[in-house]
């Protein structure tokens, strides 16, 4: 039987330096990794798939992975699919905000209170996805 504590979910974030949704994606992912689901999540820098070696490219083989993109160009999802493997789940910040009827962020740094709230909302969505993937993995492994 698998030790469930050893099962971790990989999170690959859009880095989106060019757009405010990229900043939200990065900060929300970090919040999940450090505060909301520490010990259950791991990450890798997206471009490391290219700059790194086979070890980095095996990321999705080692961890069921959730990609978090800032916009509908879905760089994180596409790069992960191309270079590592199919993600277990793919989230897009702009789509989540649209569904929840929340005004999009405007700034790329020095976030306003509204933008900080957006980070929290997205982090909770990521955490929900982490729980779903973990539950699926645990069910499969038993």
């Amino acid at each position, binding site marked *: 039987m698998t030790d469930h504590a050893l099962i971790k979910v990989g999170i690959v974030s*859009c*880095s989106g330096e060019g757009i405010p949704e990229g900043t939200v994606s990065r900060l929300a992912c970090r919040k999940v990794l450090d505060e909301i689901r520490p010990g259950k999540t791991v990450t890798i*820098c997206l471009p*490391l798939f*290219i700059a790194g070696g086979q070890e980095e490219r095996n990321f999705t083989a080692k961890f069921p992975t959730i990609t978090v993109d800032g916009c509908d*160009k879905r760089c994180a999802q596409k790069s992960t699919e191309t270079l590592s493997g199919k993600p277990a789940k793919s989230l897009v910040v702009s789509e989540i905000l649209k569904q929840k009827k929340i005004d999009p962020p405007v700034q790329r740094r020095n976030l306003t209170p509204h933008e900080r709230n957006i980070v929290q909302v997205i982090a909770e969505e990521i955490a929900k996805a982490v729980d779903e993937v973990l539950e699926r993995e645990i069910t499969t492994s038993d």
Partner: protein
Amino acid sequence: MKKPTGKVVVIPCSGIGKVYGALAREIAYELAERVRPQSVLLTCLPLLLIGDEQAKQLVTENPVITIDGCPMKCAHKSVELHGVEVAQSYLAINFYIAHKDLKPEGVAELDETGRKLAAIAADELATVVDDLAGGEEK
């Protein structure tokens, strides 16, 4: 060497796991938003990874500065992957080595000392941007 276009593309490390990735990104923001807003362009590094035509065109037509967060040099390598020669390549840690009194902290976001270091680094890069852009913006 590319013909000056008046614009320079700055591509920082996109890492979310290390303080020097955050420093690289903050230096890029300082350049694009405060120091040289008329000449510095930013693009998302992963856009290059997926071969986005607009991102490719930007790095093909304009001089490129990369600022990496670690020796893996993802930003530098990702630009070269498209057959583009990087005009100037930096490692963020070297700005700290040059200013040992400003030790940056923070991974998701830099602390105040880190932001101060980023501002100084961006000021130091202004002349590099001016030279590459082919004109002086002040």
